[in-house]
């Protein structure tokens, strides 16, 4: 009998494992995917391509399906699959660890009734100590106070920001002329040795790849080994949890998982924490049917899987020709531009019917040559081939340098976007897969269009030779939230303010699932911080 079983080892499970084992509880972490060794994290774009199955499972083994409005058949997709390995999404994350704005916690109060907007059951001030804790536990590099739009903070970052490309000062100047406040992008990458892990080696490929150096603060590198050192935490990889079991008193008793050989193994625990990311956590609850919970565990309200949110993603880029920018050191191979802008987190009147914007992150492209080639072949609408294609690729590597930006902005919860179980498609274990119903709202497009113009203005101010708008208000592939909404009312939420299921007193869902709204920044730091907060609550009540 374990004190706690934690299902999933990413941004949700990692902080729980460290805190709970550190407080003397016996912890078992079950991870469906493998535990990679650092030397397996090669920077090879073909080996790491989405369909290789390295991070997210392949469509043949373990897909999601997606159903768009007006269609009667769902298609197989990797949409919503963050990762399936020890460390979860933090194993390959870009590690842009921003805090949410205080208003992200009170969207309904600030903006009124709009689609699925809701307030969080706690505020920024309650999470602030845990933001700080998360930043120090995983190791975030940045400059406290450099972003004037950030909420109050109790402590600086543990490390100065990473070094940046010479072009970043040119970007700073362009922002200053526009009245914007560029700041060094906070990243969970060591700018100097930290907690026994080395400093960043400044590889050309970073986001999307595992870190062989160990400089990225993934839960695999930064948290789980320390949890294991307590002697009270075991991490079992290759453990596919099929069902959470429930006892007569309506309490969770543990779970059943299948090991790599397909054997069924039952685990018993006093507390069960589900940390599989918003799509898969909802799916596991929906799969765990019993006579007490015929529609899925903790789903008496029918809300498990509802309020699914992704992130709005908008992009753009600019080309700077070497011939026109002598003296700017364009060809310096340094991989990071490392600048973000939060001035447009709220929109001026007239852009959209909801005045919520997002956060702009500027960077140097990390795509390998195959991805570059495929993008250039498709650029401009019709497929390019022959001398034209070769010229485009050669120009990319020889004649100009690209700076791109991506805007993270809110995905507004709505009645048309949710997760349920697919009635037909099954995974390789024979279980129904998660089916995603996707209907992004109009606000996402309107905000995206305006935000892309703002990003392009910054690049134009740097003297760009060509400006290329990209995606406008598209939907992120991952960054998933909201499927087990937290709130104080059991009729309108699945979890209470401590991420405990209203209907099952020893069941917690601790990942992005609890988030009533998606926030306008990537959620990873918020998921980590909330997990530290919930861990403290579990320690307090378990004693």
């Amino acid at each position, binding site marked *: 009998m374990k004190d706690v079983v934690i299902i999933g080892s990413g941004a949700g499970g990692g902080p729980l494992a460290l805190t709970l084992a550190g407080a003397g509880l016996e912890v078992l972490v079950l991870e469906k995917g493998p535990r990679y060794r650092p030397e397996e*994290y*090669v*920077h*090879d*774009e*073909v*080996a790491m391509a989405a369909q290789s199955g390295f991070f997210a499972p392949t469509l*043949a083994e373990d897909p999601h399906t997606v159903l768009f409005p007006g269609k009667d058949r769902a298609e197989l997709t990797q949409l919503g699959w963050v990762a399936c390995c020890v460390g979860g999404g933090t194993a390959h994350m870009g590690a842009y660890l921003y805090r949410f704005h205080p208003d992200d916690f009170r969207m309904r109060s600030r903006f009124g009734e709009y689609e699925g907007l809701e307030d969080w059951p706690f505020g920024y001030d309650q999470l602030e100590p845990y933001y700080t804790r998360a930043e120090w536990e995983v190791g975030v590099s940045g400059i406290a106070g450099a972003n004037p739009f950030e909420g109050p903070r109790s402590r600086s970052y543990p490390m100065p920001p990473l070094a940046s490309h010479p072009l970043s000062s040119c970007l700073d100047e362009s922002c200053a002329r526009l009245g914007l406040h560029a700041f060094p992008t906070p990243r969970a990458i060591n700018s100097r040795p930290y907690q026994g892990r080395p400093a960043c*080696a400044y*590889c*050309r*490929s970073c986001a999307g790849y595992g870190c*062989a*150096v160990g400089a990225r603060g993934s839960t695999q590198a930064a948290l789980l080994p320390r949890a294991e050192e307590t002697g009270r935490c075991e991490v079992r990889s290759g453990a596919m949890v099929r069902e959470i079991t429930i006892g007569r008193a309506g309490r969770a008793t543990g779970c059943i998982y299948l090991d790599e050989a397909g054997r069924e193994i039952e685990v018993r625990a006093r507390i069960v924490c589900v940390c599989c990311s918003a799509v898969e956590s909802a799916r596991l609850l929906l799969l765990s049917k019993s006579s007490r919970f015929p529609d899925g565990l903790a789903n008496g309200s029918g809300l498990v899987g509802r309020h699914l949110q992704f992130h709005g993603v908008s992009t753009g880029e600019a080309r700077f020709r070497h011939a026109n920018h002598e003296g700017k050191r364009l060809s310096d191979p340094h991989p990071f531009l490392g600048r973000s802008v939060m001035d447009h987190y709220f929109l001026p009147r007239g852009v959209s019917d909801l005045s919520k914007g997002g956060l702009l992150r500027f960077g140097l492209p990390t795509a*390998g*040559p*195959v991805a*570059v*080639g*495929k993008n250039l*072949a*498709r650029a401009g609408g*019709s*497929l390019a*081939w*022959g*001398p034209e*294609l*070769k010229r485009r*690729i*050669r120009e*990319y*590597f*020889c004649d100009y340098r690209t700076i791109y930006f991506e805007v993270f902005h809110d995905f507004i919860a709505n009645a048309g976007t949710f997760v349920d179980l697919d009635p037909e498609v099954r995974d390789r274990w024979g279980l129904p897969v998660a089916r995603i119903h996707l209907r992004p709202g109009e606000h996402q497009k309107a905000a995206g269009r305006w935000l892309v113009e703002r990003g392009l203005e910054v690049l134009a101010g740097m003297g760009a030779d060509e400006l290329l708008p990209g995606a406008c208000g598209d939907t992120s592939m991952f960054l998933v939230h909201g499927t087990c909404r937290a709130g104080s009312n059991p009729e309108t939420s699945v979890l209470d303010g401590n991420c405990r299921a209203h209907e099952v007193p020893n069941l917690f869902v601790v990942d992005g699932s609890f988030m009533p709204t998606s926030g306008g920044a990537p959620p990873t730091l918020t998921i980590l911080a909330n997990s530290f907060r919930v861990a403290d609550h579990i320690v307090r009540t378990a004693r």
Partner: protein
Amino acid sequence: MIREERHRLLTALGETILPADEGPGAAEAGVAGYLERALDRRAARDRVRIESGLELVDTMARQRHGKVFADCGDEERADVLTELQRVPHRIVRGFLSKIVGLVIEGFLCHPRHGGNRGGVGWRAVGYSPEPLP
């Protein structure tokens, strides 16, 4: 299509999509071999789609120029691909996009995957690889 014919067709297609100019093209980078292995590895349904696309390339070449694609000259090959691009059918568009993508992979992937022989693809486009960690 017998293997030998397919190899000739893939070589010709590769060289049409990424041709030699002052620098090497797909043929020198061994792209056809990469494509063959990629096809062999693919799930059956996917492979059938690509192979019927390849048949279509030869059919189009015979119709317009009276010979298979591999026997066509540069201009005739370009004409065949341009005509194929005009076919307003999702499956044809999907095939073209897939084959162009595979040729790019075979030209610019790490040589350990069996394409980009000796790194000639990287040199041809001016890409300098970083040492793998």
